[in-house]
């Protein structure tokens, strides 16, 4: 047993962090927020070149994917990163980033689709089937003011039966379940990145911002908030990496339980770190300018993707009583 990152894995994560910082800098993120087209096809292909969507077919595993996705989450990289990764072996062009694939996730009578008009395909986990939908076939109504401007959403006005009849089943049965588990886990990895980045930003701010003649980080109330953020993010990271081991058969844990647990814990961590990060920034935290609010918004968006913290907690409760 050696549950520690290898040198190669560290290099992979560091490479991704440098790439993200170079190609998705804050100024760029802030500028695309003001436009309707958040996705940049050149950058998306660069993500493809970096192996973001294809790394598992390139001989790496879910473990490596979680490290990469943690970095993408940390850098607030916009777009349907998880869906395109899941489509890599099913839809030509997804693996190298020439086609962008988003998710169709109906919930409670509404279907909100992120980036619907900017992408080429949609995936829909419809029970045992995985469906491919052409977004052009849908009647879509854009949301005027999306909660997360880096994830513009459109509402699908068509009934589910209609969408079903206009879509194609591209996989069914066990592979669909496995892809869905991977989707849950990679979303959780993004959440860990968001939680960690929110913690880092607040931690740095607390060292520089002075009140009452001293850094606010010297106040114990602030210290304790920071410590709680760090704990949440670190525990969630362990859960996500254990989920990677479960999907790679490098653990005796049951994959369904491992990924649901990771999503629940990481979802909670991202939301907690997001809101606490804003609190630590005081009034600055409530401004548009400071990224603290972006982490929280992304945390909300990720929590309602691939099943919420609530959904996965309930799923685990049911696993507790299974004989």
């Amino acid at each position, binding site marked *: *047993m*050696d*549950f*520690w*990152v*290898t040198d190669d*894995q560290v290099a992979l994560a560091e490479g991704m962090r440098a790439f993200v910082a170079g190609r998705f800098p804050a100024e760029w993120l802030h500028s695309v927020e003001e436009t309707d087209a958040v996705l940049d096809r050149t950058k998306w292909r660069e993500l493809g070149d970096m192996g973001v969507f294809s790394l598992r077919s390139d001989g790496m595993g879910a*473990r490596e994917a979680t490290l990469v996705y943690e970095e993408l989450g940390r850098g607030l990289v916009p777009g349907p990163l998880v869906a395109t990764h899941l489509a890599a072996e099913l839809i030509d062009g997804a693996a190298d980033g020439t086609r962008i694939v988003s998710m169709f996730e109906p919930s409670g009578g509404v279907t909100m689709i992120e980036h619907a008009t900017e992408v080429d395909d949609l995936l829909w986990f419809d029970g045992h089937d995985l469906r491919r939908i052409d977004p052009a076939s849908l009647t879509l109504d854009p949301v005027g003011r999306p909660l997360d401007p880096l994830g513009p959403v459109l509402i699908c006005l068509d009934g589910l039966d209609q969408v079903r009849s206009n879509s194609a089943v591209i996989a069914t049965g066990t592979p669909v379940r496995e892809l869905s588990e991977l989707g849950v886990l990679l979303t959780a990895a993004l959440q860990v990145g968001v939680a960690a980045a929110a913690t880092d930003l607040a*931690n740095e701010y*607390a*060292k520089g911002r002075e009140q009452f003649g*001293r*850094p606010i*980080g*010297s106040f*114990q109330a*602030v*210290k*304790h908030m*920071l*410590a*709680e953020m*760090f*704990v*949440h993010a*670190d*525990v*969630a990271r*362990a*859960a996500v*990496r*254990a989920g*990677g*081991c*479960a999907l790679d058969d*490098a*653990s*005796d*844990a049951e994959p369904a*339980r*491992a990924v*649901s*647990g*990771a999503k*629940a*814990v990481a979802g*909670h961590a991202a939301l907690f770190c997001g809101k606490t990060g804003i609190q630590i920034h005081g009034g600055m935290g409530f401004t548009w300018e400071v990224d603290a609010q972006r982490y929280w918004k992304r945390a909300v968006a990720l929590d309602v993707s691939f099943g919420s*913290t*609530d959904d*996965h*907690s*309930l*799923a*685990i*409760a*049911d*696993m*507790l*009583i299974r004989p």
Partner: protein
Amino acid sequence: MDLRYTDEEEQFRTELRAWLESVLPDVGPTPDRSDWPARRAYDSRWQRTLHDAGYAGINWPRDYGGRGASPTEHLIFLEETERARAPYVGMNFVGLLHAGPTLVVEATPEQKEHHLPGILRGDHIWCQGFSEPSAGSDLASLRCRAVRDGDDYVVSGQKIWTSFAHVADYCEMLVRTDTDAPKHRGITWLIMPMDAPGIDVRPLRTMEGSTEFCEMYLDEVRIPVSNRVGNENDGWRVAMVTLSFERGTAFVSEMLDSMELCRELAELARKVTRRGGTAWDDLGLRRELGMLAAELDALWALTRRNISEATRTGLVGAGGNVFKLAYTDLRHRMGDLALRLLDRASLSLDDIGELPTGRHVQGRIHALSMSIAAGTSQVQKNIVAERLLGQPKERGWTSG
């Protein structure tokens, strides 16, 4: 990153499991909690059994009678003994996990020879005399005085919260030997035989009604200078060695038991009737329970990460503090949930008929001590913020 055990590790597990199956039937029932002589006999007998089979001091170096097992084997040992419901380390805790490992690192050859075998065999029970009425979180401000008189230190003062002092043979003591030096610099680490004249041990009743810990009044207790471990006034450093042993594997058995507790709560919820159905029909309760299970799984992953780190670097870094903070907080919430689930049945510290009230209510109370003992959660947070996150240290009170 691989959570699978190697063939060697599995081999260790298989042998241990077979051994446990062979010896556990003879262990007998756990004695009554307040029957101290019986508890001592029970804990010592189990330690002796481990010793005779070569499992005592599992992580201690071979040179000092330990097994020299790797951190992962240590983890497997804790996992298997928990799974088999073998006895806990009990009152051998301080000797095996604190005092012994400190002696291994810091003591003279004579001191080691004199003390380590007794700890490993379960012959000698140790206690920890660190905390004082006015020195808890701020341990370095301790005042218990030791004055040199020929070949002895003469020790006077008061210790408190000393677990198992009323049954112990030896005490690892921190005393003040220099009152003028800065507080961390005037402290010395001594081995105090508990039968020395001048020691008055008075049991303190815990909120559970038990007498786990004591107050110790020391009136001119003579301790030979040869019982000093490390140099005079260097005791703080020696003590930090001890405290670092509290992290890492200290909570493994407990945590595995918590996972079992969580499953039991789910079963209980399906039996307990509420509002015309069972408590399990309450989605809110179910979701909380699912989340607790997810967090326990995450902490189990964190534990294995910490163990892997210890294997690679010899130390448990940040993960020890992170674990303690997260785990103790979780146990508080799990305990609250258990009481809500039991509803009016939570008013009993003992089982009521078929209802395992005792386990759940006592577990809830136990959680209250976990966020206080061995560094309160507030002090742990200071440590995380100051040492790991680099926030400014506060003068006077700090993370140490």
